[in-house]
């Protein structure tokens, strides 16, 4: 039941997408919170394929199930029904331990609210990722080099030694992006990455996200309720009341920005 699905809107449309294996495949995902009379169907039979290197915007109003779907895609939440395959790895039946390992090595997350480790500098916040992987000796040294490179790329070299409290909102979100990219995951999931930022800073962050994803060929799903943000994506998928709909043809799909 994996070969074709009517609501599967996977046709790659961005020029940068040279998909071989899809980065993400959601198949018949259903998520019910609670039981009995209190049951809430947050996501209903959602299927979505994101090609390698593709940037997909997931657009929907508040409460429509965007965060739930993203959490399922990233192995943060178990679906009630359906299959989740990330980079060829079917995580639907993973144990919590396997999911921890999966999240550590295969996906990157950027959350809505900033959540860096408050007592670590910008650079150390990136290095947390390698510490969680148990890096020692040479690997640790390599990780430091990589953190410095990433911070330079994100325009944060001069902030490497600053604590989160000393950074602006935009800078903090850039550090969070660096953390998500640190392990070179094939898929990065963004949950309303700019909603806590003002419009101008938010646009800069979106440009940065787009550039970083494009240059690495990293696939991503960017959740937003703001239609202005969708033109940074290759493709937009709408979600309303937990049900996925097709994008409005090419209208939401931006080329190069």
């Amino acid at each position, binding site marked *: 039941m994996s070969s074709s699905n009517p609501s599967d809107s996977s046709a790659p449309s961005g020029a940068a997408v040279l998909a071989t294996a899809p980065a993400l495949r959601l198949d018949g995902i259903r998520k019910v919170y609670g039981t009995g009379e209190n049951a809430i169907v947050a996501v209903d039979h959602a299927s979505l394929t994101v090609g390698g290197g593709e940037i997909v915007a997931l657009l929907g109003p508040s409460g429509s199930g965007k*965060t739930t779907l993203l959490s399922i895609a*990233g192995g943060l939440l178990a679906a009630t029904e359906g299959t989740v395959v990330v980079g060829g790895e079917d995580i639907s039946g993973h144990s919590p331990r396997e999911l921890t390992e999966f*999240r550590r090595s295969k996906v990157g997350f950027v959350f809505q609210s900033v959540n860096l480790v408050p007592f670590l500098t910008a650079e150390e916040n990136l290095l947390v990722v390698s*510490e969680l992987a148990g890096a020692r000796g040479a690997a640790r040294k390599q990780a430091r080099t990589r953190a410095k490179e990433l911070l330079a790329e994100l325009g944060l070299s001069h902030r490497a030694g600053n604590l989160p409290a000393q950074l602006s909102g935009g800078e903090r979100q850039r550090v969070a992006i660096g953390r998500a990219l640190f392990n070179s995951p094939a898929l990065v999931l963004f949950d309303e990455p700019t909603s806590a930022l003002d419009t101008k800073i938010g646009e800069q962050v979106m440009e940065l996200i787009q550039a970083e994803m494009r240059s690495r060929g990293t696939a991503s799903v960017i959740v937003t309720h703001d239609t202005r943000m969708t033109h940074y994506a290759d493709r937009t998928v709408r979600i309303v009341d937990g049900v996925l709909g097709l994008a409005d043809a090419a209208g939401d799909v931006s080329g190069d920005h």
Partner: protein
Amino acid sequence: MNLALTELRRRPSRFTVATVVLTFLSLLLLLLGGLLDGLYLGSTGAIRAQEADVIVYSDSARDSFLRSRITPDMREVVEGVDGVTEVGGLGFTLLGATVPGESDLADVAVAGYELAPSGVPAPPPAGHAWADDRLRDAGVAIGDTLLVGPAATPIVVDGWVEDTNYLLQGGLWVTLDTWRAVQNANRPDAFLADGVVQVLVVRGEGDIGPAIDAATGSTSSLTRDEAVNALPGVKEQRSTFNAIIYSTLAVVLAVVGLFFSLLTLERTGLYGVLKAIGASTRRLFVGVVLQAVVVAVIAFVIGGALATLADRALPADVPLQLTTGRYVFTFVALIVAAVLGSAVSLRRVTRIDPASAIGSAA
């Protein structure tokens, strides 16, 4: 970079309260333990030093040295028991002694003996003594003539011995005859006839205690450890102090448990994010335990230093004695309490849902 240790270094103020409280608790543990050890060691040294297989009391003595009397006839019977190889008399008299040049009396335990206890040479000449070196604190020096008891019986100090005190009085080890002379001059109410001692120190092979008691029909034999525990107050002191020490450890456990579960509660958000990006429960939990152990180690080091200072500052007649064993016990107990106390947070850490990091829109 270790997250838990980095937090300790960068935000020491968050751990100050716990460290200060644990420092005082470890100081308390060391002082209580030191007092217990001081009381125990100072009360029992003279008996622990005996190289005896059994100690023979008269059976009317109810295991008290001071009430016990062994006559030469009884001694002869004991010497004839199968398996008995060596028999020596032993007796104690507790008195005050005038020390040359000192205004305060020194508390002494004049001990008459024949078989040398461990660390004590063979009996000195009549009228001379080997003195326990704790008597130095009372101003005693080698060559001094102490005037013992109300009768001011002179005893000359010939040398030092260690850990031989009896009921917190400084041991003065003399011949049986000298001891009897001291007793009879100062305690005419408890006059000792020639050849009479309080107890017999007996060495031998096999189960000689019951054999001796059966042969005499009027003695009661204890092993050395039983004799130590039969000293007045020893068992009571130990159980009282240990009850206080273990209650204090329960407080340590509660303090660590409470402090780190509050800290964990405060970190729910952070732990959710760390779990979301791939931290295992185990790693986070180990971090909590590590922090508790480091706090306990710091508290022990400061508390230990304070206890050492207190030991120096306290007057010599406070029976505080800080042994290496006490430091080791306190350290191990603190670490165990820190690990167990912080382990209370395991459930809380386990229950933190990685999905909480992503949450819905605020």
